[in-house]
């Protein structure tokens, strides 16, 4: 793993910052929710207490002793702020609720009730596609026509049967059935109750207005089809069952409005969870708004709200745990989902207790999204900052690591090439002036190299020194032997002296080989350049080698014309000595050594080719180094890895170079020395 990658990974750990931010935001959200819960609950408690002190203004005089039962014809009456026009349309009522289905036998009908302080409004939709008009001078008890029967309970509890029917759609009045003296029934108008009959494609609609002073707490109603005799609704003769009107308490909404702040909705429900009064409004964001405002990372931070119950959307009643708890006498708060989205709603309910009995509850609702917005704003900020910080950290880490990698790369390259192929050691390292660890490493390298250099220098001069220092003792031994022989020794002692001489000679040749490189270096310093014929030198030298190495076959190839060059022929001769010695050592017994001189560009190329074993490739480039010895064979003469080094020294003195390679065509090695013309 590269340093760059490692640092990048380290830099990426700064991503833990946004994560920690998320955790913090979640906790913050929880805390905020709890505090919102507490404050809303406290507000609900306060309102409940306040309301319990003025019970009549809250509950009016409705009788809640029986549970609200739509199937028995119980009606919830919404409260209206303004008197709507009687026109068969309910759009001007401003009530979101859909009409409630009436119990039906063969006729579909739906009803919606609402009231102002003075009137009760009824809105009825009847699915009766065939209009059967009321005949003029009808006999209501016998004639069949489309009609809606109404049974009103008067304030004194007596019943007032009425019906709504018409010969032609439009504004109509209610009618009652009266019996004339002859027992024939007639319809008599009841002008205080007006309605508008609107014929539609599906049937008809009826919008009726009944003064509140004609009305007790119950109304029964039944739509009757004039042709099919289908019915919908009830006409209850029983004054104790069904038909009750559950009205919102007039003025309660305004009263509630004085208690609440903005963005809060207060609802008072009775024991049936029916709304008695509502004040305030909620602003619940649409899902899209939230996403746009909160950013994509909302999904990473938002608490899981999917287990929250959905907000009930019934327009006339509230449901849910908090309401149920409150109605059973316990204050309670609950979080709800306002829809399928993230939008949340807090509902806090407090029981309204009057004289030790729970009469209803105050429910305060508040959007949870204010919280979310608060959280999101903080979080967006946090996210942006930490992402910026991360990006910055990654960029810096990348930059620093690239820089460090480059420096280390430089150092590595310098270390790789510190010891050159010709055995020279470069002592200066890049980066060594820096004060940091890489600088220290570079300085360490420098120290190492300088020691290596000293060591190498020592080794390089060791041969020369040894051959010089050993010369005097060797001379002592030899001159002593000379003396010994001159003094006259016995014949049986002569053998020892002869052997001692042989040893001395061998020692001398060893010392000579050991000091060869330093002698060549010495003579290179003093060498004089002359113009000479390289071809001539080669030919006469090879003739000499044939005498010197009678067992080797040495061929020579040269260009036909003289090859003049400027150089030191003695040195070239030594170079040739070494190459030929080397070739003779490695050449196979019946092999041929080829000395080939060719013109190469502006200079010459001298190749000595043998057919010995190939040279291992890893050794090829090092052959010409000082003190490099690679020999598999064993022979008597000592080898110090100086022969080919001398070849290189001489080649370089002439501005050329020496290389070794294996033959491509057959086994064997080629040593090529180039001499550019200088």
């Amino acid at each position, binding site marked *: 793993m590269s340093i760059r990658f490692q640092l990048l990974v380290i830099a990426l750990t700064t991503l833990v910052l946004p994560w920690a931010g998320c955790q913090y935001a979640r906790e913050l959200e929880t805390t905020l929710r709890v505090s919102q819960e507490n404050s809303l609950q406290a507000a609900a408690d306060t309102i409940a207490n306040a309301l319990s002190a003025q019970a009549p203004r809250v509950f009016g005089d409705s009788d809640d002793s029986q549970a609200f039962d739509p199937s028995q014809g119980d009606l919830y009456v919404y409260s209206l702020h303004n008197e709507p026009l009687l026109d068969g349309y309910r759009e001007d009522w401003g009530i979101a609720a859909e009409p409630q289905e009436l119990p039906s036998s063969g006729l579909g009908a739906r009803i919606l009730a609402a009231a102002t302080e003075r009137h009760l409004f009824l809105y009825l939709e009847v699915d009766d596609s065939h209009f059967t008009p009321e005949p003029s001078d009808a006999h209501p008890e016998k004639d069949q026509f489309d009609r809606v029967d109404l049974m009103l309970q008067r304030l004194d509890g007596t019943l007032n049967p009425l019906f709504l029917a018409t010969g032609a759609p439009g504004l109509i009045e209610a009618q009652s059935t009266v019996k004339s003296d002859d027992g024939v029934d007639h319809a008599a108008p009841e002008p205080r109750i007006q309605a508008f009959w609107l014929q539609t494609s599906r049937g008809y609609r009826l919008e009726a207005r009944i003064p509140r002073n004609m009305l007790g707490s119950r109304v029964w109603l039944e739509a009757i089809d004039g042709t099919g005799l289908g019915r919908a609704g009830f006409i209850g003769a029983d004054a104790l069952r069904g038909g009750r009107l559950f009205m919102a308490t007039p003025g309660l909404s305004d009263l509630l409005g004085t208690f609440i702040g903005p963005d809060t909705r207060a609802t008072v429900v009775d024991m049936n969870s029916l709304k008695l009064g509502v004040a305030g409004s909620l602003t619940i964001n649409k899902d899209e708004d939230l996403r746009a405002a909160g950013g994509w990372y909302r999904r990473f931070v938002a608490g899981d709200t999917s287990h929250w119950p959905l907000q009930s959307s019934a327009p006339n009643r509230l449901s849910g745990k908090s309401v149920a708890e409150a109605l059973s006498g316990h204050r309670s708060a609950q979080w709800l989902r306002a829809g399928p989205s993230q939008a949340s709603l807090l509902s806090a309910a407090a029981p309204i207790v009057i004289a030790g009995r729970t009469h209803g509850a105050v429910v305060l609702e508040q959007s949870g999204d204010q919280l979310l917005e608060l959280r999101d704003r903080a979080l967006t900020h946090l996210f942006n900052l930490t992402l910026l910080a991360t990006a910055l950290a990654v960029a810096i880490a990348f930059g620093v690591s690239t820089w460090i990698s480059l420096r280390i790369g430089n150092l590595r390259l310098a270390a790789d090439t510190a010891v050159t192929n010709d055995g020279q050691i470069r002592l200066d390292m890049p980066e060594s002036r820096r004060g940091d660890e890489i600088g220290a490493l570079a300085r360490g390298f420098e120290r190492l190299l300088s020691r290596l250099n000293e060591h190498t220098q020592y080794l390089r001069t060791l041969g020369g020194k040894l051959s010089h220092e050993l010369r005097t003792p060797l*001379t002592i031994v*030899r*001159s002593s032997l000379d003396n010994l022989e001159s003094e006259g020794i016995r014949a049986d002692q002569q053998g020892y002296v002869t052997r001692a001489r042989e040893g001395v000679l061998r020692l001398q040749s060893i010392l000579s080989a050991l000091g060869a490189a330093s002698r060549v270096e010495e003579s290179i310093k*003093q060498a004089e350049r002359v113009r000479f014929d390289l071809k001539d030198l080669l030919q*006469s030298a090879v*003739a*000499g080698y044939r005498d010197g190495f009678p067992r080797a076959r040495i061929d020579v190839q040269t260009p036909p014309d003289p090859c003049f060059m400027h150089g030191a*022929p003695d040195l070239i*001769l030594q170079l*040739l000595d070494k190459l030929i010695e080397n070739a003779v050592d490695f050449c196979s017994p019946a092999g041929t050594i080829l000395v080939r001189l060719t013109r190469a560009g502006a200079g010459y190329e001298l190749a000595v080719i043998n057919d010995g074993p190939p040279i291992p490739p890893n050794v090829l480039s090092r052959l010409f180094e000082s003190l490099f010895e690679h020999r598999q064979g064993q022979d008597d003469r000592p080898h110090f890895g100086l022969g080919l080094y001398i070849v290189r020294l001489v080649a370089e003195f002439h501005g050329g170079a020496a290389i070794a390679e294996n033959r491509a065509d057959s086994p064997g090695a080629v040593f090529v020395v180039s001499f550019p013309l200088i």
Partner: protein
Amino acid sequence: MWAIGYDPAMRKQIAIVEDEPALRENYAAALARQGYQVKTYGNRKSAMQAFDAHLPDLAIIDISLEDEAEGGFDLCRELRALSAEIPIIFLTARDSELDAVSGLRLGADDFLTKDVSLPHLGARVAALFRRIDALRRPDNASQIVRRGPLSIDGDKMQTSWNGAPVTLSLTEFWIVHALARNPGHVKNRQQLMDAANVVLDDNTITSHVKRVRRKFQQIDPGFDAIQTVYGMGYRWVE
């Protein structure tokens, strides 16, 4: 001890100045065996004191003497100041010093590396004495070899080129002598070494030949009578 048969009273006196006692004693023993009277000195100071009192007939001087790296050169200069004729042989431990000796023109008659064998040393000493004797005798031209502008007096070991004397050391003289006696014949290094009564490595022969050429070229810049036959040796061309 009396092998050569010199009269003891007439025995030639040789001074050896050499700081290495073992070598000094070996040289002394060998020369004494040949009938010479040998005095040995370990350093320049003691040698010079003795020379001031009494000059030897021949001096063999090591170049580096104890702590004086070139004490031999100084000694040679001082000795030469005392006598222009006394033969002086330099002994060197290093090949490179040969060049220094020739460059300094200290008037040494010969210089040898310490590789020289004792019989060779004896031959040289004898040759130098012979030359002294020849110089003291009246001229007889019987030993003179002439090769074009070159003339060599084998007895006096003197060489001249176009009549101008060439001052060669004993080794150099013998090399030239060996080459010029048979012009056109290639003498290999071994033959030259044998002729010069010396055991040297190839490089030293090369540098001797180089120096000989240089000495002739100082008289005649066009001198090229000594030709290198690469890989074989040298020959004299007329």
